[in-house]
C-alpha cells in the first residue's frame, strides 16, 4: 500500500517538476528575445523553414476545408432556402475556429515534430553541450530564434489558410451551387467584424507558442539515444495537438465571456 502511495506521489511530483521546467524554459526563451546577441540570420532561416516550408500543407488544408464546409453548409441551409448565404457560414467558422485550429494542427505535425527531432538529435549527440562549451547560450540560439519565427509565421500561415478556405468555398459555391461571385464575397465579408480579426490572430499566436515550445522542450529533455529521439518527436506532436484543442476551447470561452 505504502509503495503504491509513494509511486503515485513520485508520478505527480514528476509531472509538477516537468510543468515547472517547461514554464521556466518558456520564460527564459521569451526573455532571450530582449537581450543580445540577436541571431537575426538564424531567425530568418527558421521563418523560412516554418513559414515558406509549410505553405503547401496549409494551402491544401485550407482549400479542402473551405470546399467541404460549403458542401455540408449548403445541405443544412437548403430546407430554409438560405443556400445563397452559405459564404457567411463559411467565413465565420473558418476565421474564428477552423482556420486557426486546423492550420495549427498541421503545423504541429510538420514543424513541431521537426523541431523536437532536430533538438533531440542535437541533445543525444552532445551538440547542445558542445554549444555551451563554446560559450553559446543554447536556449537563446536554438529556442528563442525558433520561438520568434513561430510567433511571426503561424499567424501569417493562418491568414493564408483562412483566405484559401474562403476561396475553396467560393469555387464550390460558384461552380457547384451557382451562387453569384459578388453575392458570395459580399456576405462572406459581412459576417466578419473587426474583433474577428483580433480573434483570428490571437489564437494562432498562442498556437504558435505552444507548437514551438512543446517541440523545443521535448527535444532538449531527450535522453536514451535514438529511441529517445523517436519518443520525443511523438510526444511533441501529441502534446501540442492536445494543448491546441484545449487552449482553443478556453480562449473561445474567454472571448465569449468578454463579449467579443
Amino acid at each position: 500500500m505504502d509503495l503504491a502511495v509513494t509511486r503515485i506521489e513520485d508520478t505527480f511530483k514528476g509531472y509538477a517538476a516537468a510543468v515547472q521546467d517547461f514554464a521556466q524554459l518558456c520564460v527564459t526563451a521569451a526573455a532571450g528575445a530582449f537581450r543580445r546577441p540577436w541571431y537575426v540570420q538564424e531567425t530568418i532561416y527558421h521563418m523560412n523553414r516554418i513559414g515558406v516550408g509549410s505553405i503547401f500543407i496549409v494551402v491544401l488544408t485550407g482549400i479542402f476545408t473551405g470546399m467541404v464546409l460549403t458542401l455540408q453548409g449548403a445541405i443544412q441551409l437548403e430546407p430554409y432556402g438560405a443556400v445563397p448565404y452559405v459564404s457567411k457560414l463559411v467565413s465565420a467558422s473558418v476565421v474564428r475556429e477552423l482556420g486557426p485550429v486546423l492550420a495549427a494542427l498541421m503545423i504541429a505535425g510538420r514543424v513541431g515534430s521537426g523541431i523536437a527531432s532536430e533538438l533531440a538529435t542535437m541533445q543525444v549527440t552532445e551538440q547542445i553541450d558542445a554549444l555551451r562549451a563554446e560559450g553559446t547560450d543554447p536556449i537563446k540560439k536554438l529556442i528563442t530564434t525558433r520561438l520568434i519565427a513561430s510567433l511571426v509565421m503561424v499567424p501569417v500561415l493562418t491568414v493564408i489558410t483562412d483566405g484559401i478556405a474562403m476561396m475553396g468555398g467560393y469555387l464550390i459555391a460558384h461552380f457547384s451551387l451557382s451562387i453569384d461571385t459578388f453575392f458570395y464575397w459580399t456576405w462572406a465579408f459581412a459576417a466578419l467584424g473587426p474583433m474577428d480579426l483580433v480573434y483570428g490572430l490571437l489564437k494562432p499566436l498562442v498556437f504558435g507558442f505552444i507548437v514551438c515550445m512543446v517541440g523545443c522542450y521535448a527535444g532538449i529533455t531527450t535522453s536514451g539515444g535514438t529511441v529517445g529521439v523517436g519518443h520525443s518527436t511523438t510526444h511533441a506532436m501529441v502534446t501540442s495537438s492536445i494543448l491546441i484543442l484545449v487552449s482553443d476551447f478556453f480562449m473561445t470561452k474567454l472571448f465569449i465571456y468578454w463579449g467579443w
Partner: protein
Amino acid sequence: MIRFSNIFLKFDGRQVLQNISMDVPAGQTQVILGGSGCGKTTTLRLILGLLHPESGSIVINGQEIVGLTERQMASIRAQMAMVFQGAALFDSLTVRENVGYRLWEEGALNNESIEQRVAESLRFVGLEDTLDKMPAELSGGMKKRVAIARALACKPKIILYDEPTAGLDPINTHLVSELVCRLHREEHVTQIVVTHDLECAYRIADRLIMIHRGEAIFDGSVDALQASDDPRIRTFLRPEEVLAEPGCFPHKDGGIRVVPPMSEKAEQAPA
C-alpha cells in the same frame, strides 16, 4: 591550474563520484583512467560547469566555479575547450564554420583573421583540405581531428578530451595521441584526457588518476601505476593475466568471480 577537492555527486540516488580530489598544474597533461561508467566523463562535465557537484570545490585558474550561474560560467568557459567523445560537430555547419564557430560568435576578430585561424588549426590536425565539407562526409577519425581543430582555434588555456581515441583505427589513434602530445610540447596547454586506452594514456600522461566505481583509487605517475599491486588496478591494466581462466570475471571489490560453464550448470540443473 585545476583543483578538485572532495567532490561528491549523486544521480537519481546513485553515488556517481565519491570524494574525488586532484590537482592539475598548468601546462600538464592529466589522464583520467577507468572502466566504462565509472564517472570519468562526469568529471569533465563538472570542470566545464555542465554539471554541479553535490558537495566539494572546483577551482579553475584561481576561481571557484561551484555555484556559478550559466552567465558567470561564460568567462571561465572562454578559457577552455572540450573534445567530445562523438566529436559533437554541428551537423548543419561546414568544417570551416565548425572550427571557427566560437571566433565568429565572439566577434572579436575580423573575418580574414578568423579564416586564417581556422586554416591554421586545420593544418595542425592535417585536414586543411576539408574546409567546405559537411561533418556527415567525414570519417570517425577525421571528425575527432576536426573537433581538436575546433578546440584549438580559440587558443584555450585548458583542453578537455572525452575518449579521444575511442572507436578509432590504430592509425587515427596514433594521430590523435600525437596531436595531444604536440599540444603539450608546443603550445603548453593544460589538458585533461579521459580514456580507457592504456597505450594512449601511457604516451600522453604526465600524471594519471584512476577512478573505480566513482572513487579515485590511484593518483600518480605512469611508472607508479604500472608498479601498483592493487587488484583493481592490476585487473584493469593486465586483464589477460588476471582473468586468464575461462569463466573469470572481475568482482566489484577488485577480486575475481568465477562463473561455471553453461554445460556444467545444465548437468547440475535436473533432479
